[in-house]
């Protein structure tokens, strides 16, 4: 038992179990990948059987989906949405564009490595990943949550300065409210 719960207390175990089975996703439909999300959620692949369902606003959401390349303009909004989500929160990044820039690696207005701006829990590679891959990615996230290792929010808070510096570097007209913890 000790091993399975990964030295969590029982309360923590129950909490993580419920978090794992109830993921409200905030699908930020950037890039090409937005088109794969409906396929994942609807009848063919039915993500709801894993407890995954859409949330309308960041306040209710647990998972932020970044579905492809991010223009710097969009990045600003993504950061905003990410910061409005409440702990514990998770980020799943789709496609090679979020990993290393993909086919947009030398574009003048997209960012290359998402990890530099917000912490990412799970990358799903492919260009574009199929719904099977997306669901596999979700399962990986669920395992991570169950083990109690998904600490996206804390990572961001702890390394806030580093993230902020990176963000400032690409976003020229920085006009964001202070993030009051």
């Amino acid at each position, binding site marked *: 038992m000790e091993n399975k719960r990964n030295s969590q207390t029982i309360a923590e175990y129950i909490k993580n179990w419920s978090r794992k089975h109830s993921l409200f996703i905030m699908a930020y439909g950037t890039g090409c990948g937005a088109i794969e999300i409906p396929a994942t959620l*609807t009848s063919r692949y039915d993500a709801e*059987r894993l407890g995954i369902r859409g949330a309308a606003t960041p306040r209710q959401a647990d998972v932020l989906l970044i579905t492809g390349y991010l223009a710097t303009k969009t990045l600003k909004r993504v950061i905003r949405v990410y910061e409005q989500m409440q702990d514990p929160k998770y980020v799943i990044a789709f496609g090679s564009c979020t990993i290393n820039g993909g086919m947009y690696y030398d574009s003048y207005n997209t960012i290359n490595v998402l990890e530099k701006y917000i912490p990412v829990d799970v990358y799903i590679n492919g260009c574009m990943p199929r719904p099977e891959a997306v669901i596999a990615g979700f399962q990986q996230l669920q395992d991570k949550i169950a083990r109690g290792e998904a600490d996206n929010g804390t990572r961001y808070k702890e390394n806030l300065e580093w993230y902020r510096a990176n963000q400032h570097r690409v976003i020229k007209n920085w006009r964001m409210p202070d993030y009051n913890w």
Partner: protein
Amino acid sequence: MEGIGLKILGALLTTIMAFAVGMTYGGITRKLTARVQNRVGPTIWQNFIDLVKLQSKKTNIYHGVMGHFAPMWIITAAMTVLMFIPVLHPNSTWYSTWFPNLTFHGDLIFLLYMMVFGSLGMALGAGQTGNPNSAIGVTRGLSQMVGFEIPFVLALVALMVQYKTTSIQDIMAIQDQSGVWMMFSNPFSFLAALFASLGMFRYSPFDIVGAPAELASGPVSEFGGKYLGVMMTGGSIFAFIKLTLYVDLFMGGAYSIPELLIKTFALYMVPVFYGWVSPRYRTEQAIRYFWGWPTALGILGVIIAVW
């Protein structure tokens, strides 16, 4: 003192039951919807899991006093109405032992107004967030309420006039004596009330308040975590309350829990079924819908009742 202890226990039991039933019905609906759409769907306990997750969120935000109070108003209204509604038939043994609560101290008109209490709190909380979507959702909800309240009140007036009482227990007792449920003795009123229930449960085509597509879930769009969780709890209790009220008024009440469950579930499926095959109305269409045939049926019901 023993009496009071028993009463508190009964009240607690009622609340827990209402909560569990409301949540499970929601879960069953999700499962059934999934099956209709040829999906596997979540488990029927999914709503409980969601609730635990919402309550175990580590951080929460509120937009001011009313935002903080709104979920409390909802749950307060839900619990209060629950205390004043006869969950089971007054003649049944379970009722007198476990669920008498405070039913002898309120009547139908009181319940009608008490139910609004929660919506008012919700509206205030949503208003204070400053999110335009919330306010739009609230105005839609209020407008829709003016819509469905007309046939609903017509049905209730027919009921009260027919039986010359405004107390729910008396209406149940009279149905018991005559052996005919209200839904058969005055079918038009029942139909009017049934149409009104479509608006009350806010499944399509009347899901104009939440409207996830354009309003980003409307009034609750700024609520998350524990606040959303408490709202969900209140909403589930309210679903149970509305169903129980309908069962009490139109189906002669229930003598035992299983009977209550069967009757409420059958009623609950009406708006759910209707929702599966309907797209969404615009607000004014929804209001007009209620002021059309349902109101005509309601008036017919009153005329019949007076005769």
